[in-house]
């Protein structure tokens, strides 16, 4: 069950399978997990920004292919990672992701186009999610 709701528009969940199609993506690991759903997207090469602002069942888009990305995805419980503009993770990274069950996808589209395609399909950015939680992670009660 999604735990966020939009006050102003329909809520859209995308299956990883749909993400794969929209981004014409290759699956490096997690072929068996394409039925997982994502409810938000975040595109960045700055992992501290991801750690600060990622929300919900998020899919992370990035041009980086080091283990900082996998660690960051783990800390924010990201559903999957997409490497943009044709970047390919090394075998060690794929093995590490496989071990923790984190799907890794790759697309030839650049960051802008990749995010655009997902957004056009209805997926929201993390900053657009809301239910009593703002970007600072404070709940309404605390404010």
């Amino acid at each position: 069950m999604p735990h966020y709701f939009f006050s102003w528009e329909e809520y859209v969940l995308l299956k990883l399978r749909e993400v794969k199609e929209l981004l014409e993506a290759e699956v490096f690991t997690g072929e068996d997990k394409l039925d997982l759903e994502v409810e938000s997207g975040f595109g960045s090469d700055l992992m501290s920004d991801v750690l600060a602002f990622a929300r919900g069942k998020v899919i992370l888009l990035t041009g980086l292919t080091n283990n900082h990305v996998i660690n960051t995805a783990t800390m924010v419980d990201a559903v999957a990672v997409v490497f943009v503009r044709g970047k390919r993770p090394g075998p060690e990274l794929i093995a590490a992701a496989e071990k923790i069950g984190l799907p890794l996808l790759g697309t030839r589209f650049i960051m802008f186009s990749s995010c655009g395609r997902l957004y056009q399909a209805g997926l929201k950015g993390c900053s657009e999610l809301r239910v009593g939680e703002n970007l600072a992670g404070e709940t309404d009660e605390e404010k």
Partner: protein
Amino acid sequence: MKRNSKQPLEIVIPIKMKDFKAGGDGAARIKQVLQKIGFPPDIIRRVAIAAYEAEMNIVINSLGGEIKATVSTDVITIIARDYGPGIPDIELAMQEGYSTAPREIQEMGFGAGMGLPNIRRCADRMTVESKQGQGTTITIEIYNR
């Protein structure tokens, strides 16, 4: 939750300078332990993010150190301690966007200058103590409520 709050669990993880391969393993282990005990996901997430930021700051900026997590039912305390060189201006370092990360570190995805502010956001209490030449100790408390 089964854990007896009178007997807090302690996890100590040594952190080596510039060890980008192992960097993050400490936070991952703390996260695992908290999951096993059964803390709420949002508490685990805040602890994991804070511990990870503190751990990577030690990897990148210090000569090495350790992360110690003390876990009881009511509060999770993370103490990140390193052997230097220290933070010259803590107030400046705490500001969003302030970073001294060189280019090659930025290329790895660090250097947003968001690490310390992220820790503060995740923490219920945070203190930073630093002595030039001696080292930095960051204490993070996250209450389970």
